């Protein structure tokens, strides 16, 4: 165990250093790295906007920025964070890297399409960034008509085009994953031997493929209405503004599951690995992912409870919203049960995973408040909603992403990250996060509406708390960015399987060779077949492989 770990001689990172070998690569692993850089950039852009928002909200008066600017800030924050960060983050970075490796394939089914998705993503991103630079957009991320199609004079068309184009990159990714998972699994890798991350990527892809086109056509209709002054949304010309909301949420509610399902997949991997135990309720978790993908399409109207949709529709949507919450509950309980009688080490990835479970639970349970009809009448469009979704999206998905990134960092880069720093940052993020967003629940219950640039004075104390939390959060986020970069040069060389984990990705070298495996792997066992932990004795933290 003392023998020095040597990195493999040939791997995907040293297979060519030219710009061309990166920019025209069809290797899914390199594309994942390209996405990693891109998405971190967009996260920083969205984060800067969030920082200014929180600064502005320190005082009740609108003294830092003007109301027009404020509106542009939260719009661009929402648009960038949702469409250019959180939707693609896990599928395009971790998914791209891992899906082929986890199923023992040499690449995705359509590598060129995969590369195209990255370029398309950038084209969409540039449209949107261009709109921000030349004047911004102030519709909120929801683009409600007729404000967006008639009344605002900001850059709606460019932004909508950007979002729509980015949508196609997500369609490409989803399509690629579905075909790959169906057709390219290694010999012996049956459906119920797949890692749960693959199940969740599959479910996510279904939503991407069937939902995103509806967003595309909706935004096209919006842009056409703005451009040609005829259309189907503006009531002045006989249209129906609620139709826009139906179409928008038909995609955008399922889209929130695009944002959380991959995170659930990551957490399933992390929890089993660090409890060294087969996951509890494998099938329940797998099926619940598929159930979320399907039921997720049935509940969009819960965003429209007070919009004037029919009472009947409201009741049905409320009921279905509770239905879709059930599979999430199943997952939470199964993860918790997995810890039972495990042999747990508190490495950074597990800290993030546990953070995810806790914060997702709180975010999800407050989602139930909103699904409850009478309660939503009070809470709709208040800070309660803001807190609800930040708990799931930031507390949940971003945490899971960071956990996954740390977990697979050795595999991606061949280097270990510094464990102490990483644990400290994870704790810092957890504390900063709760301080930022918990007060917002109370603000919402007290009735502070969202998207408010100025607010009544009685809300100030909680807002100051929230802003204080946000500054802790911003600093805490800066840590991983820094030490992960540092580790590229100074981190310890990573062994093939630093966590002693099972799964095909740990059977190849770190980093993997260009075609992932030296020899085609063959699978003859179920996922997560960790050797039963020895009783009554402390487990040595060993580096020998348990997978046989």
């Amino acid at each position, binding site marked *: 165990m003392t023998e020095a770990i040597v990195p493999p001689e040939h791997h995907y990172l040293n297979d060519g250093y030219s710009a061309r070998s990166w920019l025209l690569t069809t290797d899914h692993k390199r594309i994942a790295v390209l996405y990693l850089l891109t998405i971190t950039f967009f996260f920083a852009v969205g984060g800067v906007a969030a920082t200014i928002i929180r600064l502005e909200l320190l005082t009740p008066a609108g003294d830092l920025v003007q109301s027009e600017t404020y509106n542009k800030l939260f719009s661009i924050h929402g648009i960038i964070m949702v469409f250019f960060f959180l939707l693609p983050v896990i599928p395009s970075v971790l998914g791209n890297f891992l899906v082929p490796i986890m199923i023992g394939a040499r690449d995705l089914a359509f590598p060129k399409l995969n590369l195209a998705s990255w370029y398309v993503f950038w084209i969409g991103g540039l449209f949107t960034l261009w709109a921000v630079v030349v004047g911004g957009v102030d519709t909120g991320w929801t683009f409600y008509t007729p*404000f967006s199609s008639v009344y605002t004079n900001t850059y709606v068309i460019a932004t909508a085009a950007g979002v729509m184009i980015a949508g196609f990159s997500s369609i490409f990714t989803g399509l690629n994953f579905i075909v790959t998972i169906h057709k390219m699994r290694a010999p012996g890798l049956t459906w119920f031997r797949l890692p749960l991350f693959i199940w969740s990527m599959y479910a996510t892809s279904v939503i991407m493929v069937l939902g995103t086109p509806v967003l595309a056509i909706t935004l096209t209709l919006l842009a056409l209405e703005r451009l040609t002054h005829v259309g189907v949304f503006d009531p002045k010309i006989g249209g129906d503004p609620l139709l826009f909301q139906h179409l928008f949420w038909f995609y955008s509610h399922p889209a929130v599951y695009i944002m959380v399902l991959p995170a659930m997949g990551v957490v399933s991997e992390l929890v089993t690995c660090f409890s060294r135990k087969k996951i509890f309720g494998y099938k329940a978790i797998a099926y619940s992912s598929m159930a979320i993908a399907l039921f997720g399409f049935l509940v969009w109207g819960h965003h429209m409870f007070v919009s004037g949709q029919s009472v009947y529709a409201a009741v049905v949507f409320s009921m279905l919203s509770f239905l879709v919450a059930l599979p999430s509950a199943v997952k939470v309980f199964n993860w918790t049960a997995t810890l039972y009688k495990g042999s747990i080490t508190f490495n950074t990835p597990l800290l993030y995973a546990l953070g995810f479970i806790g914060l997702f639970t709180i975010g999800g349970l407050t989602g139930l408040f909103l699904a409850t009809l009478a309660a939503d009448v009070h809470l709709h469009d208040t800070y309660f909603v803001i807190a609800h979704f930040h708990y799931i999206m930031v507390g949940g998905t971003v945490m899971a992403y960071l956990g996954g990134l740390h977990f697979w960092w050795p595999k991606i880069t061949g280097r270990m990250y510094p464990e102490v720093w990483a644990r400290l940052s994870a704790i810092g993020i957890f504390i900063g996060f709760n301080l930022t967003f918990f007060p917002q629940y109370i603000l919402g219950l007290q009735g502070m509406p969202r998207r408010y640039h100025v607010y009544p004075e009685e809300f100030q104390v909680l807002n100051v708390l929230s802003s204080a939390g946000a500054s802790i959060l911003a600093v805490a986020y800066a840590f991983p960015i820094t030490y992960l970069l540092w580790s590229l040069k100074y981190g310890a060389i990573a062994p093939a399987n630093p966590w002693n984990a099972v799964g095909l990705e740990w059977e190849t070298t770190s980093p993997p060779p260009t075609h992932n495996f030296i020899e085609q792997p063959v699978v003859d066992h179920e996922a997560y077949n960790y050797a039963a932990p020895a009783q009554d004795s402390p487990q040595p933290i060993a580096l020998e492989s348990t997978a046989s």
Partner: protein
Amino acid sequence: MDNAFGLLPPAASADAARLDPLILFLICVSGFMSLLIAATIVAFAVRYRRQARVNRSINAQANHGWLEATFITVPALVMAVMFAWGTHLYLGAVQAPADALQINVLGKQWMWKFQHPQGQREINELHVPVDRAVRLKMISEDVIHDLYVPAFRVKHDVVPGRYSTLWFTPTRAGEYHLFCSQYCGSKHSEMVGRVVVMSQSDYAGWLAGKTSNLTPQESGKRLYAQYRCGSCHKTLPEIGTCPPLEGIYNQRVPLADGTTVIADEAYLRESIVRPQAKIVAGYGKEPMPPFEGVLTEEGILDLIAYIKSLSPNVEKAAP
């Protein structure tokens, strides 16, 4: 405890009194579940940390079907309670009582206009009597707004092109926030005002003291003359080329395509703005000109009030 330990704004309406227990229930259930899960995780994490010497033997063959079933049924039952309770309250609040005080609300970028039945108009301020049901008939002149009174726990979108209603019964005198809670452009956060709940007698005094403008009905009558509606719509028994408007409110009107509709406010509005959309059976050879864009939303509200006044007996007789 009428503000749930300060978590909620003061409860100043009948809806608030009904809703607050539900919200407390939700908070308790969520709090309990979150703590339970957090506690379980922490307990497992500590007890089964790698260094610990504990019994880790598990029966790999055990069938956990019952456990999985519990994972589904327990939350399902809890959620069923939430759903039933929330829906019950929601459905109970759909239909305003017939004797509610009717106030017209007009939302536009970025102000609220209110008009009382006796003609008093106010901007960004709404005076209402305590213990009396108030029904707001709301429409927007431009984008979607949303009228929200946290102390009453009510809100509803105010949509252009159609009427939406919101009603509540204030139970406590005082001043409360009134917010626009649907994002509507630059000054969304300044489209705010206050609701003043007064005792019945104060309200009467306030009404009297307020220089009363024309009532909606009166200004409706003026507009009716100004736009020469009467040149076609003759009064009974004289029947011209177009249908008489007396007594039609809330009655069934036969349409040219063979169906019928109830002449409610939405129908009257459509008949004025876009007459061709539903043609009354037997008329329409000399079509009525559309008044879309000619009349303001306020004017339309007034005209409807006037037309309703032509049907004095059917006001409450909704079929």
